[in-house]
């Protein structure tokens, strides 16, 4: 398969440009939301609410005038950028299920956070505790993978089930102490997105995009040919750790909307769709983000208009993109390893 045509290239550039504008606007919106108590920003916040009402009256919806919906949509848009970005490296490293594992670890983190807050009256962010536990889980998986010399499914299965087991034990133990809704975290729920959770997602997005831009080459090299990367004196262990920690961070941000069970889908499905039709690795990255964005916006539209769960809607739209990509691709039989 040869070079891509100028029309397609231009289309992808426009799509990426729009996505970038949208993502920056969402980060701006979350910043305005966070700083609205300041006089100047307060004015901007009021303007945004008016714009939201206007948009609602234009579309005949009851969505954009509510700040909690802004936060959910902004979080979703940002997930649609960073999850496929990190997922592109994971899928091609045959680590497709690592996201699922780290989501379960983060779930144990949420449980720990709940227990701590119920027992001590602490009112910190559950997401922050999930983040810390998720990163520890990531380092644990990395440690196991180094010791067993493989990212094979055994350490992944052990970590996945083990951390979920711990999470259920803690939640069962702490149930008497708090009236916590576990389903929200298991299946994802737009009402789970707290102001601090949305702000965390904004910080995560800036961080992850920055790190990927800075280490694009190194991550590509170790993904494509780890041994040659070692010979070229790249610190492979360090980049592997960086990738898995970034995965944990993205997963924690994404599980607010998608839930523990579905979060891996955004790391994998848009990438699988992109891989079907992309001509190069760079194009795979671009298309993954575009498919991710289509899935999130499409999923939100279905979810809001039909009153269905958001996480499930996003994943179903993503899978529809994947199936379309297979149909559109002449390489539909090319095996994509999912180990």
């Amino acid at each position: 398969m040869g070079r891509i045509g100028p029309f397609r290239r231009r289309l992808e550039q426009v799509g990426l440009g729009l996505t970038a504008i949208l993502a920056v606007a969402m980060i701006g919106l979350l910043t305005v939301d966070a700083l609205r108590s300041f006089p100047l920003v307060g004015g901007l916040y009021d303007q945004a609410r008016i714009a939201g009402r206007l948009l609602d009256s234009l579309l005949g919806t009851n969505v954009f005038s509510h700040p909690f919906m802004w936060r959910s949509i902004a979080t979703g848009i940002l997930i649609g950028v960073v999850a496929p970005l990190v997922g592109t490296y994971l899928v091609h490293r045959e680590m497709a299920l690592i996201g699922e594992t780290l989501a379960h670890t983060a779930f144990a983190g949420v449980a720990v956070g709940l227990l701590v807050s119920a027992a001590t009256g602490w009112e910190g962010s559950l997401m922050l505790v999930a983040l810390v536990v998720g990163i520890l889980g990531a380092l644990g998986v990395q440690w196991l993978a180094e010791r067993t010399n493989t990212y094979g499914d055994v350490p992944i299965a052990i970590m996945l089930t083990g951390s979920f087991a711990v999470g259920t034990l803690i939640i069962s133990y702490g149930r008497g102490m708090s009236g916590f809704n576990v389903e929200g975290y298991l299946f994802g729920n737009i009402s789970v997105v707290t102001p601090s959770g949305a702000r965390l997602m904004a910080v995560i997005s800036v961080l992850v995009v920055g790190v990927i831009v800075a280490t694009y080459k190194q991550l590509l090299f170790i993904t494509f040919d780890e041994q040659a990367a070692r010979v070229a004196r790249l610190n492979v262990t360090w980049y592997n750790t960086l990738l898995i920690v970034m995965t944990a961070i993205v997963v924690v941000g994404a599980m607010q909307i998608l839930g523990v069970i579905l979060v891996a889908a955004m790391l994998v499905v848009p990438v699988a769709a992109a891989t079907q039709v992309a001509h190069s690795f760079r194009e795979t990255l671009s298309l993954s983000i575009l498919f991710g964005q289509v899935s999130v916006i499409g999923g939100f539209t279905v979810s809001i208009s039909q009153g269905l769960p958001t996480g499930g809607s996003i994943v179903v739209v993503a899978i529809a993109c994947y199936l379309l990509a297979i149909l559109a691709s002449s390489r539909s039989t090319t095996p994509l390893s999912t180990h």
Partner: protein
Amino acid sequence: MTVVSLENVTFAYAEQPAVKDVSLTVDEGDFLGLVGPNGSGKTTLLHLMLGLHSPDSGSIELFGEPVAAFDDGERIGYVSQQATSRGGSMPVTVREAVTMGRFAHAGHGRLTDADRATVDDALETVGITDLADRQVTQLSGGQRQRAYIARALASEADLLALDEPTVGVDAESRDAFYQLLESLNASGITIILIEHDIGIVTDRANRIACINTELYHHGDTESFVESDALTEAYGATGQVLHHHH
């Protein structure tokens, strides 16, 4: 100048010795053929030379530096056995793969026009300019190995290490591939080649190291051909593959 120097190097996987008390040197401009029966420790020895394993005892130097401290990654080009390289289904173009040779030079900075020109030169040298926009997965075995050689050239490597690069490559492409290696060697690049076909090695290499855990021969090709090293290393059970013209 000595490119690689091993002194009394021993390495074992758990209790299973793979390389025992091996001492040898590779000088600048050498074309060293590394031969030995299957499971004789050839790949392990190459990995030790490149710093992918640390020896249990003995010392290894790369370009005059202890191998563990050596950090000029761009000076070494490595072409592994095809089967061991990941990315079998990764949509990476030939140009992207060859550009990886510039990554050690660029670090976290952006690639420059000079980097891209070096990549173009490397593609041209191995004769795959017309395949630059193809995916690596769509190449034949011979073309793919040329792409990996181009990656090593793009990194402006002084040492090219190849581990059975032509497994699964048809005879015609294999001959062309070895001609390419010869011309690269003539231009001053030091080559270490693991190859199971003894005939190819004795035709192309100017030095031979023959090992079966221990070193049975290390010297020029003529003395290797005249010696009994091959029979001794392969033992009674060994199958020697000779190359027929």
